[in-house]
């Protein structure tokens, strides 16, 4: 299977100074500095956006489509993630924000929060009716979490909730509506307004779905600046908001778990915290829990690198918006949406990413491992990054696998013998 045909970050080579900040932060050791430029090993990249966040020279560019792309389509739908609401002042209401999207050129909107309520319903049903359920079940709405497990936590694949995400469901509903209105496929433009580059990748490549229907994925920050300036020109506010607080709450960490309605759950956000929790699960320590909600960005989707507002401020604003809407959208059920529980199931199970495997042949893998260990023993164990690898261990691997010279370590003579 062809994985990752597009990438979630690209490099502005003029701005990159090869400073190793991003390399040291990357949770999957997916960055090397070669010839004074940060190079991403894309088969290891999980799209978390940490490198974008940490780069002091703003050389890391998250991937998204240009807003102007929407004008190529006759019927343009904005798929609005609930984190979008958290960017605006809480004096506004969700209806006004959604009307703002019409004001900047969209013909219709579809709330991801509405779909989220349906996914919550499907999740509750799935957890009730699935035999021999794993403990704990791990959420799959954050694509970086799924990728992280596929790359680093293979033993937890069966713990993943095998249901489609609210964004995927919202896209499907928007497509269905467009077809019902009589538009041809080439006339329909479905655009997700994304808080992060991971969703750009996930929605285009599809996680758990066979044929992604999204046309483009836009930067939340870019759309926000357009909409916020258009709000004052809105004359007629149409009733577009169908989602209740339970759906909107998915914008921040803990929201998804709220909808699952299980007593024994845990929620964690921020890539380092998430990795710590996954290690606990791998060690068999959290089997008393039913559900674990993990989000790669601190605070949840409101913490994505394509957002403008501080995630904690955004979370507070989401709460304010929530006071103005019902708890659950009144007519918002799977049945009313014309769907069945089956429609939420994963169509394909994502495959393990074996990128850390040293060799297909186990004996050869063991020999390589021995070589790596013997190289590693000669290194200073500073993990300084000067050689262009994130740690002495990673450098030893690069020497054995990629054929780099051990002399690329310039601090070998500083090594103190143990």
């Amino acid at each position: 299977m062809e994985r990752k045909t597009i990438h979630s970050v690209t490099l502005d080579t003029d701005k990159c100074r090869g400073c190793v900040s991003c390399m040291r932060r990357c949770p999957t050791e997916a960055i090397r500095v070669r010839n004074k430029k940060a190079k991403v090993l894309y088969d290891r990249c999980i799209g978390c956006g940490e490198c974008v966040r940490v780069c002091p020279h703003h050389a890391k560019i998250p991937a998204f489509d240009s807003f102007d792309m929407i004008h190529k389509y006759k019927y343009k739908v904005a798929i609005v993630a609930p984190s979008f609401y958290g960017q605006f002042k809480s004096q506004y209401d969700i209806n006004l924000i959604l009307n703002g999207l019409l004001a900047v050129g969209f013909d219709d909107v579809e709330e991801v929060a509405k779909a989220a309520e349906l996914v919550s319903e499907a999740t509750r049903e799935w957890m009730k009716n699935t035999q021999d359920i794993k403990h704990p079940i791990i959420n799959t709405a954050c694509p970086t979490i799924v990728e992280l497990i596929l790359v680093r936590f293979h033993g937890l694949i069966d713990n993943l909730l095998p249901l489609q995400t609210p964004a995927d469901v919202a896209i499907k509903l928007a497509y269905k509506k467009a077809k019902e209105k009589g538009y041809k496929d080439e006339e329909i433009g479905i655009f997700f307004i994304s808080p992060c580059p991971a969703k750009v990748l996930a929605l285009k490549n599809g996680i758990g779905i066979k044929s992604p229907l999204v046309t483009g994925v836009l930067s939340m920050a870019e759309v926000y600046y357009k909409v916020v300036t258009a709000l004052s020109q809105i004359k007629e506010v149409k009733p577009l908001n169908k989602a209740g607080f339970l759906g909107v709450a998915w914008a921040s960490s803990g929201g998804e778990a709220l909808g699952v309605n299980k007593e024994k759950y845990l929620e964690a956000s921020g890539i380092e915290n998430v990795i710590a929790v996954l290690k606990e699960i791998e060690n068999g320590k959290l089997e008393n829990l039913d559900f674990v909600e993990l989000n790669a960005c601190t605070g949840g989707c409101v913490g994505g690198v394509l957002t403008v507002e501080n995630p904690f401020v955004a979370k507070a604003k989401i709460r304010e918006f929530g006071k103005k809407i019902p708890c659950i959208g009144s007519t918002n059920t799977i049945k009313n949406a014309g769907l069945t529980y089956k429609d939420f199931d994963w169509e394909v199970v994502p495959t393990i990413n074996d990128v850390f495997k040293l060799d297909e042949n186990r004996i050869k893998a063991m020999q390589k491992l021995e070589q790596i260990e013997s190289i590693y023993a000669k290194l200073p164990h500073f993990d300084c990054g000067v050689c262009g690898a994130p740690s002495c261990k990673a450098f030893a691997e690069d020497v054995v696998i990629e054929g780099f010279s051990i002399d690329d370590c310039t601090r070998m003579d500083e090594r103190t013998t143990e």
Partner: protein
Amino acid sequence: MSSNSVHLEFDVVGNNFVSAGSASNEVKGILKQLGIDPLVIRKIAVAMYEGEINMVIHAGGGRAIVDIFEDKIEIVLIDTGEGIEDVELAMKEGYSTASESIRNLGFGAGMGLPNMKRFSDKFELESEVGKGTTIKMSMLFPE
């Protein structure tokens, strides 16, 4: 290359809950690099983690010696702690001599040794009161 095995040794520091689990974590990473089945890795990791924690809680630390062969892993955990008085009782699920303060940290559920045995294909425990405990576990890699 010397032989078809990988030999690793780790110091497990006693009473340090922060670093506890680092040896099993490293072994987990190595098994992943060797392409061992993820579910088998998980069993090995849980068993070794429990063993490490036991040494941290009860024995003031110890040493973990790991040998990885083409078809199996052998883990030897050696400590010079207080030893186990009644091995049969210690192997019972839910039995624990961990103190209240240890239990408050979320350890000491009495599942450590039973889990280690359950996840091993071969399990040997030798203990002498006042001298220490040695545990040998081996797990096969299914083809």
